[in-house]
């Protein structure tokens, strides 16, 4: 059975969308990194959330998460890599798992930075976003892991365990990184090669690599869902939170300024309710279709 609604992202927008869709009795799956990795969690004090000044971001998020959990939201820790439209549902790939939902709400936050030079050109020719997907193809070969997400060291260890020769690139050597993995301090990055990737260039110095794994916090919405319309770098939505794709809604920072908690929670509410309505309409039209077929 597919979920009624899959929410991508577990920040304030996603959690607000989840509780509002649950209030309409929809089954809801929230896929996200650990919510404690949200930038809000590190905010010492939030003073502009109505009626609740002086709270820490952590206290707020803890409360939001508990609230969503108590409503019966299903949580899955992981990174959504792709969303594929099927006939009347969307299929989401989450690491090595797959889930299906009738509507999707994107609450992915602000996309972290631009693509690196060479990234788009070498996608599928050495550039990968998923160590568990593509790691096996690089066994016994040199690879570079660009660690931009908290779970990146784990993924690097996984690659090393497969037999890849891993170089890890990040601001500082992370704890828990396999001692056998060499580390290079991150700088200006460029992916270079000819037919396929041959190296990761860091501040002008090449680290030989046949694979470059770019492990970011989240996959940008347009890479998740080809065909999604953007506006000024953000996901384009109408006042109902509808994107350019049917059954796909968006809320929070990924839809644009201001990047504020109250706006995210409000948009999450709108998207959660509208997505629930969309699912109801879908069910109605399916019922009508099946009655027609029965005649």
């Amino acid at each position, binding site marked *: 059975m597919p979920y009624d609604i899959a929410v991508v992202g577990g920040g304030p927008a996603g959690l607000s969308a989840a509780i509002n869709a649950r209030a309409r009795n929809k089954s809801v799956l929230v896929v996200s990194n650990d919510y404690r990795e949200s930038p809000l969690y590190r905010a010492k004090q939030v003073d502009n959330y109505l009626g609740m000044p002086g709270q820490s971001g952590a206290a707020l998020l803890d409360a939001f998460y508990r609230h969503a959990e108590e409503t019966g939201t299903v949580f899955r820790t992981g990174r959504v*890599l792709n969303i*594929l439209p099927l006939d009347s549902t969307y299929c989401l*790939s989450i690491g090595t798992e797959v889930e299906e939902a009738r509507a999707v709400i994107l609450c992915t936050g602000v996309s972290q930075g631009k693509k690196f030079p060479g990234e788009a050109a070498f996608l*599928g020719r050495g550039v990968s976003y998923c160590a568990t997907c593509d790691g096996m193809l*690089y066994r016994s070969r040199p690879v570079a892991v660009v660690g931009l997400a908290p779970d990146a060291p784990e993924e690097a260890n996984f690659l090393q365990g497969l037999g890849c020769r891993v170089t890890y690139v990040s601001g500082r050597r992370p704890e828990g990184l396999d001692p056998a993995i060499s580390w290079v301090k991150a700088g200006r990055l460029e992916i270079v090669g000819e037919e396929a990737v041959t190296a990761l260039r860091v501040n002008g110095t090449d680290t030989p690599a046949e694979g470059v794994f770019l492990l970011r916090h989240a996959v940008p919405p347009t890479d998740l869902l080809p065909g999604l319309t953007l506006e000024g770098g953000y996901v384009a939505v109408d006042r109902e939170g509808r994107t350019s794709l049917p059954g796909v809604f968006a809320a929070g920072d990924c839809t644009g300024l201001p990047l504020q908690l109250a706006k995210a929670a409000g948009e999450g509410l709108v998207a959660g309710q509208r997505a629930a309505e969309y699912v109801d309409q879908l069910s109605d039209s399916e019922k009508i279709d099946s009655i027609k077929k029965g005649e």
Partner: protein
Amino acid sequence: MSVLHLNESEFNEKVNSSPVAMVDFWATWCGPCKMLAPVIEDIGAKYDGKAVVAKVDVDENQALAAKYGVMSIPTVIFFKDGKEIGRKVGVQPASAYTQTLDANL
């Protein structure tokens, strides 16, 4: 069976002998590949008798994956008379694959 599961020895025979073939390079441990599986099955059924639609498990057929430079999965490669005419890396909607098939049939 409309979707063929090919190993190295069958690959040349089936793919080279067909005017048009579409091969999905995949693996059991790849989430996006699982997602694409029903799409490939569907295309296999629709193009039965018109084009060869096949799958290659890259884990069991590493030499084939290496030969065709498959470096990210899923990768779907299109062949005409055994020669590669295009490839699509990553999961794409069914229409992306059928357009390429239709253009070459």
